[in-house]
């Protein structure tokens, strides 16, 4: 077995030192009735690299990779070009095969990287301070609601109708067990998000209002007035960003008054990966830092007076606080945070703005072209790189039909809202820099044929 260095001679010598007659004797504490006499039955034995690679490649070949066809899927996961150096650097063994930096003297690489990641995220989201990452956007969204509850000592969260339904599902699941109250109005496929109505739902029990920006339909609403209304009621504004590239083009939620901004960082560096692992972003105001969940890296000095970095404020965390912790989370998404940080470093401010501009240019082009297809109308007023089309027919069936023809047309609202037939005509179309004008033409032609 190529991964196991001990030889039979080594094993015999080691048993002699231990004073045990056999390895079986080391498992003497296992109840006899439950001991297995040999390998678990009915499962294959070990296999060489070539055989395993062939098996995995066969499974991979049964998937249509998004890069092999025109692809317009978004809805919380976006296909962007990731520079080759990103994947090379995250595969350096010193990053890939290191543990959580509990011994800071020999983990300054991971610690400094995270200390750079935190302000990158905070600046992008428009906040004072960010943590070292969470599991993903949906779990970060729940953690923000829980944090708002701790700060305000209230337990009702009002969700915008434009919050991604999987995020809503995650939040509702957690709230069911914690006893928090979750309120949400139904989604209406209209041009602008109704933020004024959302402000009207706030009352004296409300801990926070949660608004996605751009929202699940790709719409962009000004959060400033909402923030004022929420604050006047003693509640917090939580903003959710599922496409951080958008913040190269539009104002940050923090700058418009959001108190906690969470996001899905997958867009930068991480890749699609069929839904995970992704990267939860989490940022807030300085004054709330001790209520923030997740790991934090801070600057300090070593015994020789040199600058260095350590995990800090761990008295919020489960390994110290046990049942009084701010969260049960004990891992972050370290390697995904590294990929995000490297990608954002390669872009820099200039590159992020150019990338965002290119996404928006292509999305405008696509929205204009697709709205000319008979039976298709554009729902959105404003959008960044994703918008909603309304089609005459069942968008979910159209998406399946076009997939059979080698075209990944987008995400239907029927897929996202299976219990709501009134949304069946909605189709989310995301257009990133990876789409070209021929792809947009192919989508227009495909929709035209499907709706004819």
């Amino acid at each position, binding site marked *: 077995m190529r991964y196991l260095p001990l030889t039979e001679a080594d094993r015999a010598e080691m048993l002699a030192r231990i004073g045990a007659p056999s390895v079986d004797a080391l498992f003497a504490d296992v109840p006899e*009735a439950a001991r297995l006499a040999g390998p678990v039955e009915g499962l294959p034995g070990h296999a060489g690299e070539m055989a395993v690679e062939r098996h995995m490649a066969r499974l991979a070949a049964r998937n249509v990779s998004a890069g092999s066809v025109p692809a317009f899927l978004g809805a919380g996961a976006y296909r962007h070009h990731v520079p080759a150096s990103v994947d090379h650097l995250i595969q350096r063994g010193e990053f890939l095969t290191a543990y959580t930096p509990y011994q800071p003297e020999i983990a300054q690489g991971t610690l400094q990287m995270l200390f750079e990641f935190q302000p990158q995220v905070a600046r992008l989201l428009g906040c004072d301070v960010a943590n070292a990452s969470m599991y993903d956007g949906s779990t970060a969204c729940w953690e923000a609601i829980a944090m708002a509850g701790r700060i305000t000592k209230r337990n009702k969260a009002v969700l915008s109708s434009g919050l*991604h339904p999987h995020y809503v599902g995650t939040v509702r699941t957690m709230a069911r067990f914690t006893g928090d109250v979750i309120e949400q109005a139904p989604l209406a496929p209209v041009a602008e998000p109704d933020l004024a109505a959302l402000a009207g739902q706030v009352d004296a029990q409300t801990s926070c209002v949660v608004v996605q920006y751009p929202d699940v339909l790709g719409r962009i609403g000004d959060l400033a007035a909402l923030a004022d209304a929420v604050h006047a009621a003693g509640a917090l504004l939580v903003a959710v960003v599922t496409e951080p590239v958008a913040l190269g083009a539009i104002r940050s939620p923090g700058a418009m008054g959001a108190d906690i901004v969470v996001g899905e960082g997958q867009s930068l560096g991480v890749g699609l990966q069929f839904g*995970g692992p992704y990267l939860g972003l989490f940022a807030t105001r300085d004054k709330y830092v001790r209520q923030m969940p997740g790991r934090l890296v801070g600057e300090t000095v070593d015994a020789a007076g040199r600058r260095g970095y350590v995990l800090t404020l761990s008295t919020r965390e489960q390994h110290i606080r046990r049942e009084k912790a701010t969260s049960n989370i004990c891992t972050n998404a370290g390697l995904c945070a590294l990929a995000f940080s490297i990608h954002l470093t390669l872009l820099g401010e200039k590159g992020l703005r150019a990338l965002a501009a290119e996404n928006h240019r292509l999305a405008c082009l696509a929205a204009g072209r697709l709205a000319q297809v008979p039976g298709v109308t554009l729902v959105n007023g404003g959008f960044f790189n994703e918008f909603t089309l309304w089609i005459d027919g069942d968008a979910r069936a159209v998406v399946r039909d076009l997939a059979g023809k080698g075209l990944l047309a987008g995400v239907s609202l029927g897929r996202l809202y299976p219990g709501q037939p009134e949304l069946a005509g909605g189709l989310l179309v995301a257009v990133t820099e990876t789409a070209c004008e021929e792809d947009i033409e192919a989508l227009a032609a495909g929709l035209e044929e499907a709706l004819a």
Partner: protein
Amino acid sequence: MSINPSGWRPSLAANDTVVEQTGTVTGNRALILEEPLLFELGTTQTCGVDLPEPDTAPSVRLGGLERTGAIGLPGLSEPEAVRHYTRLSRQNYAIDLGIFPLGSCTMKHNPRLNEKVARLPGFADVHPLQPEGTVQGALGVIAELGEWLLRLTNMAGVAMSPKAGAHGELCGILCIRAALEARGDAREVILVPESAHGTNPATAAFANYRVESIPCTEDGRVDLAALKARLGSDVAAVMITNPNTCGLFERDIVAIADAAHAAGAFVYCDGANFNAIVGRVRPGDLGVDAMHINLHKTFSTPHGGGGPGSGPVVLSEALAPFAPLPFVVRTAEGYRLVEEEGAADNGGTQAFGRMAAFHGQMGMFTRALAYILSHGADGLRQVADDAVLAANYVLRSLDGVLDAPFGTSGPCMHEALFSDKGFAEGVSTIDVAKALIDEGFHPMTMYFPLVVHGAMLVEPTECESKATLDQFIGALRSIAERARAGDPALAQAPVHAPRRRLDETLAARKPRLTFKDA
């Protein structure tokens, strides 16, 4: 201090005010290179990616919310970026450099085949919301890995979506809560042994349970009599780690499970240490109702400097119907992904909800499946055998220099536990750990579990050669002897690492969590 029952002493030695001179004008010491912060190196006008120049008069449909002010994001060209991150990487210890014997963390070799297959475009470049017909291979990976986990544990159901061990733990506890609610049985308490990981009580508290601690016996195991005495109609579950955090197999596990079940409670097993018993014993044969499996521990997906993890949960017959959405089912036409509550084809399950967006840590599933296929049923058993053999070898090789509090109560499993008993006055566990750094090793887990004073938990794993184990044992023996003799130099360690001991008290007292422009 109430939060610090274990002897942890995070501050620096008080007399250490040495300012080390490197003797170089750069501060570099040959291959140990000082690296400035990104924010000190980059500029907002530098870019390492070629992109089209934005139109000067673009069409804009941003709802009037165009960004106006600067963001403040520094950029680097590609050569500068490659050098920055390569230099940072060299300040990390890693499994690729040597033994990483962190007890309870399981740092084993990460096979590169797994990295290769995870990057096949058919896995890496697939959108989670593509139509089912275009992702049959991806759904097949989830189903195939799930099947292996069920067979290796002899359980009835598996939830694949949890994103890490603690998330899986939460998923398991929520299944228990949902099952109890479904039978109209409100229970309030979860019993957790005092040697448990901190996540166990944190998870139970999150799920709105009151946590009560169960003591350990003298030989490092759950006190069965105390547990039985506390069980009653208010107890929802017993959370137990097996093998436990003292590195011992819970001999009474079947009796514990029987007693819990007789009282109407469920048994949650923290599967963090499943790597010690995989292929040797199946938790389903021990009476376990739910157990998460950290794929990064037992099945060697990379730890990546602290994540991403992946924590599938295997479930007993009684809990399986409550597993969360989404899940994969096999039909005559191929794999289906069930995402909807009350869907007609979900087999009558009562999913308690959804743990996260999308379907789980696919990138970890492909790696774990490649690891499992490489080992096969026989190799996985050998993994457990060699891991347990190596730990017992370390345990017995340190007889006479390190106190092993449970060393006489039988063999250990995959990790060997020592205490600071016998160290001279003024020498602590942390000094031993830091001295190991100077010898070129990553230290063991220190000050955990809390039930042992000055704990040192050594987990060598199955991936170390005998020569490496002998070298590590030799270094640890020598350091332990110095600790017993009270060598004052230990308090200075490490002196050869990129940094000396860091002031964690200062970091917490005056938090600097972000770069502030000068």
